[in-house]
């Protein structure tokens, strides 16, 4: 893994020097002999800090017997709980950009070409579609609904795509579709929780938190797991989607904002100039050192380091989020306009964060819940706006990363929390004002692009109606296992002791790495 992408740090910005702090820490370590016992951040198991010798565990290509037998240790020096740890085996990617389309976009209007469904448009849905099924809203006998938009084939891969994503379609040869995603949740909040935490209930750790816990992050001056929202609302699952759950809160996602401070509490109060702040930090630092000398509590050293890092984060996070610094041409490519909370701006920021060594970047775009109850979300109206909002920026992000040579070690995932029915929604048994579809947990499409993933292929298949999977079903936990594999982990090994269990993202049901999509 190369380290070249870390931006050089702004040195000498504060009186609080990294160097002296490190010395202090080393002195403390020496005073405690070579063995140094620390609080695990985890299940409360006293264990051992082995310093930097962890590198030896990055064992690319180690045989599977070894990786099965060796349990991993995620203990860190508590003064840098986000410090990088090597993956279990050679990773294909070093970061993830996850584009979550909250509300569940219709696969039948985007990627699932179903001519038979269009032929049967307007006919009563067969009884076999309804028997034993649980729906959010459909009741009685709904009508079948063909795609609202025309489809065509593009590129070498010959992927089918509708006319709604004219920019993205130029990149389909870089994309791997999974058209056989399946979930067991048909309501937004639980389904989003399942996608993000591996569990439909509250209280579990999000994917990004797991990755941060397992790998840490390159750049200690920025949060390692950053969340950006667009579409005007938080996703239905709320902040739990980037919660650290039972993992220590240091691993929770940090929501960054395009209005006001990019990170909460990042800016100095208006009455505190940066030079005054530097003086203040100097005083804090000096007094805290005296406290350490008097009490000898290692947490004091940690605190000294955190204040120093906070000072650097103020600058680095502000800089990372500032898309004014991009040339006009790049901003035009994304369709970004500084100052808006737009998906375009967030995609551009995502690239800047990726460049700066942020491990997990999660974008949410809201408004995909096309029931047909409202013009803003209807397939024939608002849905087209959503497509416009994400099409160009998504394409630009792929192109931009590729051009910078970063696509090969970045994993991009695009998708919602479930699919939509081939039946037109008939809430209360009546035809709706606008065109929409109900939730379909039985089949949906996501796509991946980037390192380690076969480009230009489709995995899995649904029936002629796009209703049920007929080939190669992929569970959410399989997707998680696959993503972890690309990041260098056997999903069984990335675990954490809590409530008497070795908790893991993929939970207890069997999960498999979808080997068919691996490059």
């Amino acid at each position, binding site marked *: 893994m190369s380290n070249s992408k870390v931006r050089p740090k702004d040195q000498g910005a504060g009186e609080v020097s990294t160097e002296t702090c490190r010395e202090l820490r080393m002195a403390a370590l020496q005073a405690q002999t070579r063995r140094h016992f620390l609080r695990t*951040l985890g299940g409360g*198991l006293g264990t051992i800090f082995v310093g930097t010798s962890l590198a030896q565990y990055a064992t690319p290509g180690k045989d599977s017997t070894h990786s099965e037998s060796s349990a991993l240790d995620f203990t860190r020096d508590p003064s840098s709980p986000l410090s990088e740890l090597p993956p279990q085996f050679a990773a294909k990617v070093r970061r993830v950009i996850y584009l979550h389309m909250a509300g569940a976009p219709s696969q039948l209007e985007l990627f699932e070409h179903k001519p038979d469904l269009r032929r049967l448009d307007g006919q009563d849905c067969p009884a076999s579609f309804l028997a034993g099924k649980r729906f959010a809203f459909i009741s009685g006998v709904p009508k079948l609904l063909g795609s609202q938009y025309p489809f065509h084939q593009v590129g070498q891969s010959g992927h089918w795509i509708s006319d709604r994503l004219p920019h993205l379609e130029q990149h389909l040869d870089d994309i791997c579709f999974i058209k056989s995603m399946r979930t067991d949740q048909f*309501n937004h909040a639980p389904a989003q929780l399942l996608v993000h935490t591996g569990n439909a209930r509250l209280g579990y750790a999000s994917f990004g938190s797991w990755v941060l816990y397992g790998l840490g992050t390159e750049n200690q001056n920025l949060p390692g797991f950053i969340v950006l929202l667009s579409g005007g609302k938080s996703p239905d699952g709320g902040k739990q989607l980037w919660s650290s759950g039972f993992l220590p809160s240091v691993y929770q996602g940090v929501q960054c904002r395009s209005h006001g401070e990019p*990170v909460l*509490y990042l800016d100095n109060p208006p009455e505190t100039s940066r030079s*005054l702040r530097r003086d203040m930090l100097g005083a804090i630092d*000096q007094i805290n050192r005296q406290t350490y000398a008097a009490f000898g509590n290692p947490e004091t050293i940690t605190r000294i380091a955190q204040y120093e890092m906070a000072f650097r984060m103020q600058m680095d996070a502000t800089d990372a989020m500032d898309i004014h610094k991009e040339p006009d041409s790049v901003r035009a490519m994304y369709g970004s306009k500084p100052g808006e909370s737009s998906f375009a701006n967030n995609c551009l920021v995502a690239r800047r964060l990726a460049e700066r060594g942020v491990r997990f970047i999660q974008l949410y775009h809201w408004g995909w819940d096309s029931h047909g109850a409202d013009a803003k979300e209807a397939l024939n109206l608002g849905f087209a706006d959503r497509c416009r909002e994400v099409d160009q920026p998504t394409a630009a992000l792929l192109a931009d990363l590729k051009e910078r040579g970063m696509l090969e070690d970045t994993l991009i995932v695009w998708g919602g929390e479930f699919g939509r029915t081939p039946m037109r929604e008939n809430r209360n048994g009546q035809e709706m004002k606008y065109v929409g579809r109900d939730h379909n947990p039985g089949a949906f499409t996501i796509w991946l692009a980037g390192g380690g993933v076969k480009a230009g292929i489709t995995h899995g298949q649904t029936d002629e109606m796009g209703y049920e999977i007929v080939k190669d079903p992929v569970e959410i936990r399989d997707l998680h296992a696959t993503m972890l594999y690309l990041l260098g982990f056997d999903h069984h090994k990335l675990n954490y*002791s809590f409530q008497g269990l070795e908790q893991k993202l993929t939970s207890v049901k069997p999960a498999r790495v979808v080997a068919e999509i691996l490059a």
Partner: protein
Amino acid sequence: MLDAPSPSRRQRSVVVLVAVVLIGTAMGAWFARKMSHAPISFSSDIQPILNQNCVQCHGGVRQKNGVSFIFREEALGTGKSGRRTIVPGHPDESELIRRVTSSDPDARMPYHSPPLTAQQIKLLRQWIQEGAKWEDHWAFVAPKPQPLPAVKRSDWVRQPLDRFILARLEKERLAPSPEADKSELLRRASFDLTGLPPTLEEQASFLADSSPNAYEKQVDRMLASPRYGERWAALWLDLARYADTKGYEADRERPGVWPYRDWVIQAFNRNVAYDKFVITQIAGDLLPGATFEDQIATSFHRQTPNNDEGGTDDEEFRLIAAMDRSATTWSVLNGLTINCVQCHSHPYDPIRHVEYYKSLAFFNTSRDADLPEDTPVLRVPKDKKRYEEAWSLQQEIAKLSDATVNLGRQLESQAKWMPWPISTASANEALALEWEAANSERELAVLDKDKLSPKEKKDQRKYLLSTITEDRKRSRSQVANASIPFQVQDGEMRAAANTPGKSVYELVATADVQTITALRIEVLPTSGEAARHNPEDGFIVDQVEAWAIQPNGHPDKIRFRYFVPDSEDDLRSAIARAIRFGSRSGLAGGFAANPNLFRTHWTIGLPDNPLKLTPGSRIKVRLTQTQNVNDKPAHVRRARLSASSDSCWSELIRDQEYRSNLMRLSTLTQQLKKIPSVETPVMAEQPDYEKRETMEFERGNFLTKIGPALTPDVPGLLPRLPANAPRNRWTLAKWFFSPEQPLTARTAVNRYWEQLFGTGIVETLENFGSMGERPSHPELLDWLALHFENDLHWDMKALLRELVTSATYRQSAKSTPTLTERDPRNRLLARGPQQRLSAEMVRDQALIASGLLSDTMGGPPVMPPQPEGVWNSVYNDSKWVDAKGPNRYRRAIYTYIKRTSGYPSFLIFDASDHDVSLARRIPTNTPLQALVTMNDPVYQEASEALADRMLKAADKTDDRLRYGARMVLSRNPTDYEQAKLRELFEKALVELGAGMVKRAAYGKATSGNQQRAMTAVASVLFNLDAALTR
């Protein structure tokens, strides 16, 4: 190594093994045994080997090849290989030994993993040789009385507990630290007991008091302070997953939960004994002579999230809440983790799958059902003085409702019924829309009765008007006017698949009875008895009407005097409707199963006079249905009719008491409504006629249930419930406090210990099972548990008093390099505890030091400043509005808790997000915390206010700085600190002289650069390590 290596820790490197120094309890004991050839202990020698190496494949979840090591009888059984896994007394005949020693890599266990060490194999052999005795995990065996250990330095001891700590230190050849100086000790105790630093007066009085019990006097003062309850409530509200919103997508407000929060604070302040404190919260509704406050306390288990998202299955989320209650009860009271047993037997502890559901059964018969209105609720007056009044009204309403419903049910079951087979049935949409339009007009007419804001009223009016227009428009259409014919099966109506969302069902039956006194309409689950366990979507009938059709076709409308309700829900709706639209409307005969249908529901119409029918007449019944349940039309899917000629119904019509009860219910309901109140969700049992049964869910899936109905019970590894007690929550709650219960007292004392010393005696507060940590001082844990239970009778303040007045607690936190090396995590307590302040304490310290803190207690939650745009939840209009005035500066415990969007600065300081019960906050130390205390406007305001106080307190800069330090650090600054603060103040003055900054948030009168420079100093004080710790 001072911590016993946990069996769960997967050692991944040689480094770890080399570094292990075996002075931990378990391993120490192991060494001792090894030296003396003492018999092997299953719990400390064998189970860790099995848990670490075998149980993942051969345990509660997976039992590969039929082999499991959870229960002894399983381990002694025969695996798929046909050989016995363990043959007691004969290691060489045991497949286990053959497998762990095999040289064939495909046969050798652990499979494709490093082999067991020679030492481990030797232990296994010796254990089998000695009979393979199984032992219960330590925590499942009741605590044993422990003699107080003899110690050399008995003069050091202040409390019996000190002997246990000191004995261990002496064994380790460590000396305890000297007592902390007075300032350090007072700060520590003050935060621990009240959550606040000592005030200047409190500091001065303690420093000036040279009496031998000066410290004890302070402790008593703090325990008596109302601040004590506010501090300890924070801990309990984490466990109770207390929040002001319901969670999940909509995350709407629960405006009536705060009376429960106030109950907790008051219970701590009144020093309710721990057993009573817990029993009231688990089963306050079932206590004989339960008080109003006992009912409020049961809101503990109504703090579970509710899912109001459109299209969710209420039964699914009702069950999730019930499972949460069961899991939370076990984890809070016993440190047992049973959630994982939902899908399979416990992977490590001997708890079987079915036992999970037996334990769930205690919580599966409560009346809540994930309804948006959060029923059942208690109306709690905003003014405490009216509690008595509100309670007596609610009690009487409950009594009268019971009597009314029970009388009806009794008559219904005694009366003779003649079935009236339905001959034709159909549904019509137009009629339903007409009814809805008319009903909306009635609603419009009484809109002014509702307590709504002008905006809400306007919106409601708009909504009603558009409903009327839309309904009338559609009802005139051809589609709506066409009646949909229904199937009739065995004289019962079966709805068609294409039944309109709003329908009037018309049922026609041939009436061959001549005189009838009652007409019964039953709505049945389509799946019959199966619905008892897999309920169907519910139904709502708004109105029931009937006609007698003469043989000549002439319809005579039947006038009903009463509709006899079959449930309290139906009765309550009828009364509410009568109040709203006049008494006749209450008799519209609506009935419902909301949200789910799992039994037959009925309503009985009683005609004004016995109905005499001409032979050849028919009966026509219309059921109007316009509403939704679970976001789907509230269809009637199966119904039947019957008639009774019994005279009991005519008597009921003449029964003055029945009539006056109904009138009285209406009056009482109206009186109750007039008392300004909030609605607090509480626990209440289902009436007997509705009681759910619990079955096992196959692999945890609530849609597939298997086996017989289960009797509520506790897991078999624990003591039995009393033989003749009813199997309900009250019995369960009392059982936790029975003398033989091994875990309740241990879990409780461990929690207090952790709060004061930073780490529990059992570090994993949430898990006392075999995968949890072992106690650092097992004898002390048992001693404390029995002491708390038998000597202190669960008196929480008395226990805390003993803990904080112990010599152990009173030690200085200063460490030495030797001590840090020997015991970096201070598990042996050769020095005093030093902890970071909790999220609440960080805020409250800043407010009290700056003089901003409001001392108002209780009441609705408040919204201190929070950055804009933090709340933007979907489908939810609620807004965060920064409080003005004193509510801006209330203690942290009163801050509004929104589940999907917690108060940011608290979350950054590791507060719970209150989604699930949290047993232990894990403190972290991050740059984001530094940003909060440096930049959050709350701390900026506090810094400015503190600066004002410092400037007013004295004339000389040095005195001002000293004052500030005493406020924030609870002590005088050191000379070095004083010098550094002074240096900063002077630098800041110079900087500010440049005139580049303006003053913002707090403070009206700016006193210039002095003030601003002092604000910088105050801010630095709040950010010192010494300020963030106690």
